[in-house]
C-alpha cells in the first residue's frame, strides 16, 4: 500500500509564535492517522498547510505524489476537508450546500445528483434535505459539514475536530462513518483532543504539543515507548499467594502480586498471555470470579511526554 499523504518538515510561524515546528508524517491508503493534542497545539495550522490553505514557511506536502500549494489548484481534488469551524451556508438547504461545493469540485450534474443522495444517506439527513441548515441542530450541522467533505470521493479525508460540541448520539454516528470510510480505502487524517477518539479510530497517532510532534506510532508502540504496561486484575478465591507466584514465573509477566481478594498482574501485552495466565492461575487451585484488563491509555502517554493533561 502506497502513501497517499507525505508531509515533511512543515513549519509555520505567526509573528514570534512558532505554531507548527518541523512536523512530518505519512498516511497510507486505508489508514486512519490521528493528530492528538490540546487546544493551541498546532493541529489546525498543520492541516491548513496540508490542505493548501496556508503557505508553510518551510516544508513540503504531497498528496498522491502531487505537491500542494496555496497558489495552485493541483492535487486539491484528492483532498476532502472538514474544517473545525462549521463551514456551511445557513441560508441554503442541505442539498444546496452539497450541490454548490460539488460543482466547485467540477462534478457533473448526474454524478452530483447521485452522490448527494448517497451522502445524505450516510450522514442521515435524507429527510431534512430541503430544509435550510440554519434550522438544523448542532449535530446535524456537524454531520452536513462532514458530508460536504466526502461528496467528491476524495482519496484523503481531513477531519479537524469533527465532534466538538456534538451530542453523544451524533458523535457516535460520526465515528462510525469515519470507520466505514477508512474500511473503504480512504486515507483519513483525524485531529482531536479526545484521547478516546484517537484510540478508537486511529491506526497510528501522532501526539502533538506546542507545535511539535512528541511521539508517533500505534497505540501499543506509544504506550511501550513510555514504559507503561497493561494491568490484569483477577478476582479470585483460594490460595491467592500460590496462584500469584505461579503467574509471576510466566514469561511475559512483569510482576504479579496478591491484593484484597485479587491477583494483580502487570504485563507488556495482556491479550497475548491472558489464556495461559488464566490456565495457570486456576491450575494453582483458586476459583476465578472475574477478570479485568486495564490497558494504559494515550492520556497517560501524553501526561508522561508533556507533563500535563490533555484537557484542563
Amino acid at each position: 500500500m502506497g502513501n497517499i499523504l507525505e508531509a515533511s518538515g512543515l513549519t509555520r510561524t505567526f509573528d514570534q509564535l512558532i505554531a507548527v515546528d518541523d512536523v512530518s508524517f505519512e498516511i497510507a491508503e486505508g489508514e486512519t492517522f490521528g493528530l492528538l493534542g490540546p487546544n493551541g497545539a498546532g493541529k489546525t495550522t498543520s492541516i491548513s498547510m496540508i490542505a493548501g490553505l496556508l503557505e508553510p514557511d518551510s516544508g513540503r506536502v504531497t498528496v498522491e505524489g502531487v505537491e500542494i500549494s496555496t497558489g495552485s489548484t493541483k492535487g486539491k481534488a484528492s483532498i476532502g476537508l472538514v474544517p473545525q469551524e462549521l463551514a456551511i451556508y445557513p441560508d441554503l438547504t442541505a442539498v444546496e450546500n452539497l450541490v454548490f461545493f460539488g460543482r466547485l469540485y467540477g462534478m457533473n450534474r448526474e454524478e452530483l445528483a447521485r452522490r448527494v443522495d448517497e451522502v445524505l444517506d450516510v450522514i442521515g439527513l435524507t429527510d431534512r434535505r430541503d430544509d435550510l441548515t440554519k434550522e438544523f441542530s448542532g449535530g446535524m450541522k456537524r454531520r452536513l459539514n462532514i458530508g460536504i467533505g466526502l461528496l467528491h470521493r476524495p482519496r484523503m479525508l481531513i477531519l479537524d475536530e469533527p465532534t466538538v460540541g456534538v451530542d453523544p448520539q451524533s458523535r457516535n454516528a460520526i465515528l462510525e462513518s469515519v470507520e466505514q470510510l477508512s474500511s473503504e480505502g480512504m486515507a483519513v487524517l483525524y485531529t482531536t483532543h479526545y484521547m478516546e477518539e484517537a484510540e478508537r479510530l486511529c491506526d497510528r497517532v501522532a501526539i502533538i504539543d506546542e507545535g511539535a510532534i512528541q511521539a508517533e506510532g500505534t497505540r501499543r508502540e506509544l504506550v511501550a515507548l513510555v514504559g507503561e504496561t497493561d494491568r490484569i486484575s483477577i478476582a479470585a478465591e483460594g490460595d491467592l499467594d500460590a496462584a500469584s507466584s505461579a503467574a509471576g514465573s510466566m514469561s511475559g509477566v512483569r510482576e504479579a502480586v496478591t491484593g484484597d481478594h485479587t491477583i494483580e498482574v502487570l504485563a507488556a501485552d495482556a491479550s497475548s498471555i491472558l489464556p495461559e495466565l488464566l490456565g495457570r492461575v486456576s491450575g494453582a487451585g483458586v476459583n476465578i470470579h472475574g477478570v479485568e484488563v486495564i490497558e494504559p491509555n494515550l492520556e497517560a502517554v501524553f501526561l508522561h511526554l508533556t507533563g500535563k493533561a490533555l484537557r484542563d
Partner: protein
Amino acid sequence: MRSALQITVKDFKLRIRDRSAIVLGVIAPVALAFILNMVFGSAFDTSGGLDLGYGLVDEDGSEVSQAFAETLEQLEDEGLLTVTVFENREAAERETDDGDLDSYFVLEQGLGQAVLSGSAATIRVIGDVDAPTSTQIAASIAERFVSGVEATRLAILTTLEVGGATPTDEMIAALQQEARSAAIAYRVAETAASTRQLDPTTYFSAGMGVFFLFFTVQFGVSGLLEEERDGTLARLLAAPIRGESVIAGKAILSFLLGVLSMAILAGATTLLIGAEWGNPLGVAVLIAAGVLSGVGIMALVAAVAKTPEGAGNLGSVIAVILGMLGGTFFQIGQGGDLLSQLSLITPHAWFLRGLGDLAGGASWTAVLPAAGAMMLFAVVTGVIGWFMLRRRLAR
C-alpha cells in the same frame, strides 16, 4: 471563471433570501427619492407643478411699493406664482394660517420714503411653517427687489450729487423700472439655470440611487470577509479553484446587485414620480461606470478592513462622505467654488453631472467624459483592492 460565476449565483441566492440587498438596493432609494421629491422637489419645479401662493399687504402705497406689486403681477403673468392683495395684515394672516397661502409680503408704511432717502428698506415676508421652501423663495424675491432698488438708488444719488439736481419724476420712474427688471431678471436667470441642469425629481432619484448604490455593492465584496469569519472561505480555498475566482465571484455579484438596483430605481422613479433620466444608452453607460467605481472603492474597503463589521462601518462612512460631498442630498453648483471643486473627487458628482449632460435630449455620447472619470475611480481603487485581497487569500 466558471467557479467565479458559481460563487456569484450562490451569493445572489443568499442575498435575495436575507432580503437586506433588496431593502438597501431598491426600496430605500425609491422611498427616499419619493420623500425628498415631495419635500423639496416641487419647490424648485418651474414646470407649473406647484402653485406658489403669496399674499400682498401694501401699507405704504408709494411708488416703490407699487413697483413691487407690479413685479409680483408680472411673475404671476408668467405663471410662476399667484398673488392675492389684502387690505390688512389680519386678512392675509388668516389665509396663511388656513394654509391657503404659502406666505405674504408686508410693505410697511414708509418703505418708499426709506428707499428714496437712503435709509434701510425692509419688506417683511411672513410665511407658513409648513411651506418653508416657498417662503424662502418669497424672501429671495423681496431681497432681490430691495437690492435692485438700492443699486439703482445709489446710481441715481451719484448722478444727483454730480449734477446737483433734485429727483425728477423721470428719475423716480427709472428707479421703479430698474427695481422691477432686477427681480425679473433674477427669476429668469433661475429658470434658465435649472433647465440646463436636471429637474429636481430626476436629480433626487439619481442622487438617492447613487448614494445607496455604494451600500448595495458592499454586499458583494464584503461577503468575502463574511466567508472568512464564518469559516466557509477555508472550504472554498480548499476546493480546486483559484483564489482569484472567489474574489471575482464577489466582484461580479457587487456589479450585478448595483446594476440591478439602479435599473429598478430608474424604472420605478420614471413610472412613479415622473423622473426623466434621459437617453437609455447614456444612462446605461453611466450606471455601469458608476457601479464599477462603487465596486472598486468597496473592494479596497474590504481589503483594508479586518472584519466584515469593520468593512461595513468603514464602507458606510465612506459612502456617506462621498455621497454628501458628491451632492446626492442637495444640489451643488458647477461653478469654481470650493465645494463644487471638491465634489469632483467623488464618483457621485460625476454620475449626477453625467446625467445633467444627458438632460434635454442629448445623445448618449454626452456622458462619456463623466463615465470616463468614474472609470478612473473604478480602475485605480479596483486594481489596488484586487491585489490586496489576493495577497490576503494566499496567506
